[in-house]
């Protein structure tokens, strides 16, 4: 058990007209290796909660135990916060706004230096962290962080945290304000960090489709309480309640729910687009005794319909029938494979193709 939170409550500006309750009797255990997603409305207490894990807020009521460090409302014994922060890394919303040094290298070195490491160790970690976030160390180390693009700045800021090599990494809205391409890169980076840097990762996000792509457990905050704490596959049994709280549910779950309402039950455990596609292909194979590969990944629905459906069926399903074949054979093929995976050298041109095929899948 790496993080244990017991009976945690917190109120802002207590005993004034500005009083606002942020957390009320929160109990949670976060295990080593968890890929935890936290969702909830603005003001539901999720940001206050994660600030407790990093010792940035002292608990008012209850206690927080991180590894062997215990945070309590009492003043004594004094807690070694620096030690705590070397174990728990925190990437705030818009982390690029915290960059201050005149070169990327110095900025990334700020954290490890504060940990009191030797110069050699700091230099080693800085190089490692910059490379880990997918930037070219030699090319960026002497540049001013303010010259970089939005996505690059964010990656430098994240490098500043992972250079401290935290065991637990917390990210607050890591993709906010980025374009779809930048988002994709950050998401892939987070997945990469999970295996190569911090085994436990906690992510706050508004975008549920984003969270379901990697989380294995989701905690839902509502009105300063924890409403749900479930493995990702189980959470969306509560779709209706989640929507009542004003929270979005993944698009794939919406499709499954709509189908169920019309009498087609694809099962409970579908969360991502890929799950949905697998289930549909499986159903199709059963019904038509065909053997389409379930693990083919998401591909062009046009190809699919051309290959497996008759023109009557297509018409019945209301599928768009394109008259001419797409001219650019090459770009079309790229769209067959969904996702950018870990390919960092990907060119923006692919992005368009990918979003096109995604659109089609949504229509279905």
């Amino acid at each position, binding site marked *: 058990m790496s993080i244990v939170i017991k009976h945690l409550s917190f109120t802002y500006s207590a005993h004034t007209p500005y009083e606002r309750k942020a957390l009320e009797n929160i109990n949670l255990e976060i295990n080593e290796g968890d890929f935890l997603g936290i969702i909830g409305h603005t003001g539901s207490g999720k940001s206050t909660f994660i600030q407790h894990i990093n010792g940035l807020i002292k608990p008012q009521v209850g206690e927080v135990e991180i590894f062997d460090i215990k945070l309590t409302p009492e003043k004594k014994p004094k807690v070694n916060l620096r030690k705590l922060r070397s174990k728990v890394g925190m990437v705030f919303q818009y982390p690029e706004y915290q960059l201050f040094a005149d070169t990327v290298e110095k900025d990334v070195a700020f954290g490890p230096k504060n940990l009191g490491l030797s110069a050699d160790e700091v230099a080693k970690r800085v190089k490692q962290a910059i490379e880990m976030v997918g930037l070219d160390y030699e090319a960026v180390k002497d540049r001013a962080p303010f010259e970089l693009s939005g996505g690059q700045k964010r990656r430098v800021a994240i490098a500043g*945290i992972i250079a401290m090599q935290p065991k637990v990494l917390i990210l607050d809205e890591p993709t906010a304000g980025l374009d779809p391409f930048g988002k994709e890169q950050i998401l892939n980076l987070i997945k990469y960090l999970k295996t190569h840097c911090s085994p436990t990762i906690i992510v706050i996000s508004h975008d549920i489709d984003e969270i379901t792509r990697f989380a294995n457990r989701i905690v839902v905050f509502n009105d300063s309480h924890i409403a749900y704490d479930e493995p990702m596959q189980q959470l969306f049994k509560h779709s209706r309640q989640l929507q009542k709280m004003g929270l979005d549910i993944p698009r794939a779950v919406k499709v499954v729910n709509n189908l169920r309402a019309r009498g087609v039950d694809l099962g409970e455990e579908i969360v991502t687009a890929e799950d949905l596609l697998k289930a549909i292909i499986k159903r199709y194979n059963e019904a038509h005794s065909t053997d389409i590969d379930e693990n083919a990944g998401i591909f062009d629905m046009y190809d699919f319909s051309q290959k497996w459906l008759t023109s009557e069926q297509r018409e019945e399903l209301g599928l768009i029938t394109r008259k001419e074949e797409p001219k650019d054979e090459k770009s079309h093929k790229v769209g067959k494979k969904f996702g950018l995976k870990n390919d960092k050298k990907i060119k923006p041109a692919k992005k368009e193709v990918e979003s096109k095929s995604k659109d089609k899948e949504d229509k279905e």
Partner: protein
Amino acid sequence: MREISFGQYYPVKSFVHNIDARIKILITLMYMVSVFFIVSYTTFFCMFFLLTIIIAISRVPFRIVFKSINGLLFLLIFTAIINIFFTSSGNVLLSIPLGKLAINITDQGINFAIKMALRFSLLVLGSSILTFTTTPTELTDALEVLLKPLTYIKIPVHDLAIIMSIALRFIPGLMEETDKIMMAQKARGANLDSGNFFKKIKAMLPVLIPLFVSAFRRADELADALDARCYNASSKRTKMKTFELKVTDVISFLVFTALIVLIFLDKYYIGGVVQAPDLGGFEVQGLDIFVHRLIMKITG
């Protein structure tokens, strides 16, 4: 989010909150000037009594109003002590020899020091009631109206008012931003509150630089937004909320004027200094003379 601090607007509904902001500013100004004319303890007592009533009516808790003095307590005590040491008139109570010179503590010195402290607290309390009960927007709007005559001598009052309201509007945002950046740097192991003065300043750089960057960015964005909506400060503008005098405004203004008349009567009409023999020749001033006589009569 920050804890509530001194001088911040306190959002409740009350008679005092409701008074026209222009009247409130005028009253406060008159009040602040007249505080310097108070001579007798009797008037001080009247003023404190009135302030207590006003605070009670305003429904701002006393605890919070008196917090505003807390921060200035050092200044208050310091000025009072200076006064004690540098007044030489009156009867010497204690003499501290300092080489050839001697510092004399006199009854008049103590008298002045106490009055100074009272004046100071009256000033702080009075002005904080204004900021507790008036929103920053009301304040700037009212100031703009009150300063209108200055436009005749080519002072851009509206521009100044808009600058002031934008500045006020930005303060909470920047505070929040500071909090956020401080947290972010603390999370990176920054040590922001230990070491000597220069070390502390150096440690604040990782907070100050991003803060300035973001302040400039915000200012830029706001300027663009104003431009995009064709904002022009020099053209004639109308207000969404206009001030209208109510009967209660006039009444509160008159009540205050009466009090100020009392203060001036005290100083210039009743005036006078009487040495009270029963107090060892201590000089009694203004209305205190009457009160002193009254007490003498009752006690015989």
